[in-house]
């Protein structure tokens, strides 16, 4: 039913817009994002087409990524990305969710805005500076703690990445907590529920889905993060042995694209394979963001009475 009204609505909308020049310009600006996304998909697919036809599933499943031998198996890279991201989320999900609850419900009123601003500042530090800190301070620390030759490991990348996605998780899940109507909180407190009982029995059940969305957005940010990860991950295109060894170097997808794009000849298989990897990233983040959006949109929090 929705698609039908949409199809019928489209020509009518254009007729209407043609008689309203200002509205038409505004509409064009608003649809710019849609156009850009479509163009992005089109061009990345176009540039990657050579790799898809020549490599097929090898681009995802192939075990070897060796530019010199013209081998472009993306598995170790994708594995590296997922390894670094899951490590990062393992750290930042508990930290972020607890922080958001603490700020929204427990911290005294006067401190809430200043602390939120600090988190916001943390979010605005560019990834290249996180990378710099990772290379100059964190990696040597990791190397000396674990007695490694080099501190550039999946673990180091996870740590840096965890710090980077923390503000996303704190921000989005904090927003959903504040969106819980105050009526529910007051109802629980007036029954004699303690602060913690109110949080556990009323606020958390109502903001569960928003917290899930915050985690998905955090995942999307983490998997697309490039520069900081590249600088501390060690960049060895192999699945570590054993596969859960976080103290081994990895070569995440984003890092490969950033490092090799400059040297890849336009139109070569390597160039195309890099775009192929880009398409994989595009699809993953697109899916994750869409799901997060859907989760946020169907909020279970309803109004109690229609006045």
């Amino acid at each position, binding site marked *: 039913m929705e698609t039908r009204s949409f199809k019928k609505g489209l020509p009518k909308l254009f007729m209407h817009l043609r008689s309203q020049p200002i509205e038409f310009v505004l509409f064009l600006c608003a649809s710019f994002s849609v156009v850009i996304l479509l163009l992005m998909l089109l061009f990345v697919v176009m540039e990657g087409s050579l790799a898809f036809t020549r490599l097929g599933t090898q681009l995802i499943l192939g075990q070897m990524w060796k530019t010199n031998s013209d081998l472009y198996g993306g598995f170790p890279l994708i594995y590296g990305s997922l390894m670094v991201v899951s490590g990062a989320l393992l750290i930042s999900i508990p930290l972020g969710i607890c922080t958001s609850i603490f700020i929204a419900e427990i911290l005294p009123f006067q401190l809430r805005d200043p602390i939120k601003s600090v988190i916001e500042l943390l979010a605005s530090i560019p990834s290249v500076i996180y990378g710099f800190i990772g290379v100059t301070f964190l990696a040597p620390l990791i190397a000396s703690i674990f007695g490694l030759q080099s501190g550039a490991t999946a673990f180091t990348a996870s740590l840096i990445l965890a710090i980077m996605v923390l503000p996303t998780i704190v921000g989005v899940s904090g927003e959903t907590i504040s969106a819980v109507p105050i009526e529910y909180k007051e109802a629980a407190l007036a029954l004699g*529920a303690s602060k913690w009982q109110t949080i556990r029995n009323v606020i958390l059940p109502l903001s569960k889905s928003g917290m899930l969305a915050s985690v998905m957005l955090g995942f999307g940010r983490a998997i697309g993060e490039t520069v900081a990860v590249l600088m501390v991950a060690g960049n060895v295109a192999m699945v570590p042995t054993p596969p859960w060894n976080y103290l081994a170097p990895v070569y995440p997808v984003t890092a490969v694209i950033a490092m090799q794009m400059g040297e890849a000849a336009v139109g070569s298989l390597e160039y195309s394979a890099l775009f192929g990897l880009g398409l994989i990233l595009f699809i993953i983040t697109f899916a994750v963001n869409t799901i997060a959006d859907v989760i946020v949109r169907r909020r279970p929090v309803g109004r109690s009475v229609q006045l």
Partner: protein
Amino acid sequence: MVNDAKVDIRNLNVWFGDNHVLKDVSFKIREKAVTAIMGPSGCGKTTLIRAINRMNELICGCRTSGEVYINGHNIYDGNINVYELRRKVGMVFQKPNPFPKSIYENVAFGPRIHKMANGREIDEIVERSLREAALWDEVKDRLQDSAFNLSGGQQQRLCIARALAVKPEIILMDEPCSALDPAATTKIEALIRRLSKRYTVIIVTHNLQQAARVSDFTAFLYEGRLIEYSDTKSVFENPRSELTKNYIAGKFG
């Protein structure tokens, strides 16, 4: 005038930031009766009843001075357990605010968090509370339905049942009928009369007729001060203060 005082308010002052909302309010509220607090909007009615279960302190920038004695204990003493206080002093809000849970879970919420009962006993408490709130017959076959499927009036009675489930001694009602239609209002008012046999009810209203219909005692609040307090009949038929007279005559409101 009131000898057997359940609640004894002495020199109560409340500020929100620089705003002096309640000014030196003192009066005694009788046990097992309905006391109405009326006055024009913004006079501090809601703040006054929220001072009785210490809900004001949840609002940013609120300060309170003075004493409120319940059963002879000052609830603003440092060693008072505020959660136990709020269990003893139930509250019903302006707009029905059931939790987004089932009817059963709404009523069971209080007994559960206070660990007053478990299993079977909770079933009994739910039934007893819903009967007391005159809702049982309407919902007994659909206790697991969402509370949002009830009508506005039913939701408000559910909120009353939820408050009754933790065995309170006092029930505060903040304009409980302002969001309801006349038929639902009639039911709630009858319910309030019945509840006053077992509980001390304090109801805030800006509806004069409602105060006259349901209350035994009436307090008139104006700009944060207590202007008049007496049994309802004499407040309405023989007000002492000129302000009260004008308010009842509808000259302002």
